[in-house]
């Protein structure tokens, strides 16, 4: 790896970590579970790497490994976003909740 690329990627990493701390430290405890599952869905971004490993250059085995990675990353991404959405849908303010009946 070119040293300049390493430095650049490390810069991106450092700034992102600080940004992450800034963003998350303000989340109220009510939303900690959706925050966790929502962040979890974002960590499924490895799907990008998995897609390259599956369909890009490589040999038989590396394509198979990539395909497995795509499957698991996809579960992570779709599962994470759907579950988060289901949870957030339930968080309601007082005015709206009283007019709605029970869900089950």
């Amino acid at each position, binding site marked *: 790896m070119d040293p300049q690329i390493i430095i650049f990627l490390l810069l991106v990493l450092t700034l992102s970590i600080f940004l992450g701390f800034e963003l998350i430290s303000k989340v109220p405890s009510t939303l900690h579970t959706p925050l966790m599952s929502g962040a979890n869905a974002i960590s499924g971004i490895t799907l990008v790497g998995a897609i390259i490993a599956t369909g890009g250059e490589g040999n038989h085995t590396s*394509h198979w490994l990539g395909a497995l990675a795509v499957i698991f990353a996809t579960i992570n991404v779709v599962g994470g976003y759907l579950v988060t959405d289901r949870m957030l849908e339930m968080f309601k303010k007082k005015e709206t909740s009283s007019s709605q009946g029970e869900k089950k």
Partner: protein
Amino acid sequence: MNLDIMINLAYILAAVLFIFGLKMLNSPATARKGNLISALGMFIAITAVMCSKGLSYKFIILSLIIGMILGIPASKWIAMTTMPEMVALLNGSGGLSSLLVGWAEYHHHQTLDMMTAITTVLSVLIGGVTFTGSVIAWGKLSEKFYSKPILYSGQQIVNSIILVGVLIGSTLFCLDPAANYPIFIAIVVISLILGVLVVIPIGGADMPVVISLLNSYSGLAACATGFVIQNNILIVAGALVGASGIILSGIMCKAMNRSLSNVLFSGFGSTVQKAKEGAQGEVNPISGQDAYYILEAANSVVFVPGYGMAVAQAQHVVRELGELLEANGAEVRYAIHPVAGRMPGHMNVLLAEANVPYDQLVEMDDINPVMNTIDVAVIIGANDVVNPAARHDESSPIYGMPIINVDQAKTVFVLKRSMNTGFSGVQNELFFYENTRMLFGDAKQSIQALVAEFKG
């Protein structure tokens, strides 16, 4: 503009959307939209990578479809009470994916330069630990495995030896990646074993810390993978997730007054002296009807839910009782301890499922100062988080842990099946206080009885 630049610009756009999405999670009013924006970012990133030159799509599309077939139904049908297990499994699949990408890259190139070799090892190690660690956490949460801490003599030594082994193996591998495929496989195997070993000594009540920590790892694994394939979006997204997991773990540890290393290395409750157990005095049982008379006269009521409410699936009847009390003129609030339940915010999600408006949910620090004005505090399936011993009894294992001071309310109702101890194995002196009334029985049935009294 060439294709490569276009793809990278799309990644930047995706990163911006992730950031906005997370920012909008700051308030329940915007959170759902934020999640959609973050999902849009993910969609853009995936679309962009699909436009890369020279991809063969057959395998990719097939795997994407399999992943969706497995992921979509599971997340649609799962019950809200089992959400901690679901989050653990999703975490695990993210970690496994990072491991596999690192492996695929190595298998393809083999001759890696030093920096790439180091990051490959990192993505495999963190990914592997995240995967098996999450599976064990899932097993403990769903009580498929033994959920008590598993401790054995020499545990620290075994773990240390494995860690040293990993370090030596990784160094050898990084010095000459091409010649050391067997070492690489060994690292994969060890990382999977390590994930099991680090989670088994941790007890059920400490799961909120473990889950948020594993969440952080899954982000860091994605980050390391980003270095392997030199991809910005993986690094940015991974770092955001890593940071969020670390912050949550910190909040959870603070709420238990324990350091992270204490949670990770010493099974909570395993060292409790059993001598102090057994009754410390007389408890005052109360019948459902008497409880009704007190509640009926109350002007302010606070519910304090714990994991027991999730087990009894009592959140819907609790909300019903809350509404009846409100109609009766009482001010109703729900006080939630940061580590109540099995993951951060677990109780909030359950109460939201039961249609409790989020403005009635209050945090520990907001309710404690006004606790002495509360007429009735109703404890549903919580124990350690309301144990006053945490304030004054230095010999108690939970000494120093911030608690909800329900004992300062005028009357305390404790809904409990029997006099068994909580997860920490500590007897709760609150039960013997003069203003405490024990309402024995299944939490759900007890509350249903109260609801029936109000209606009848």
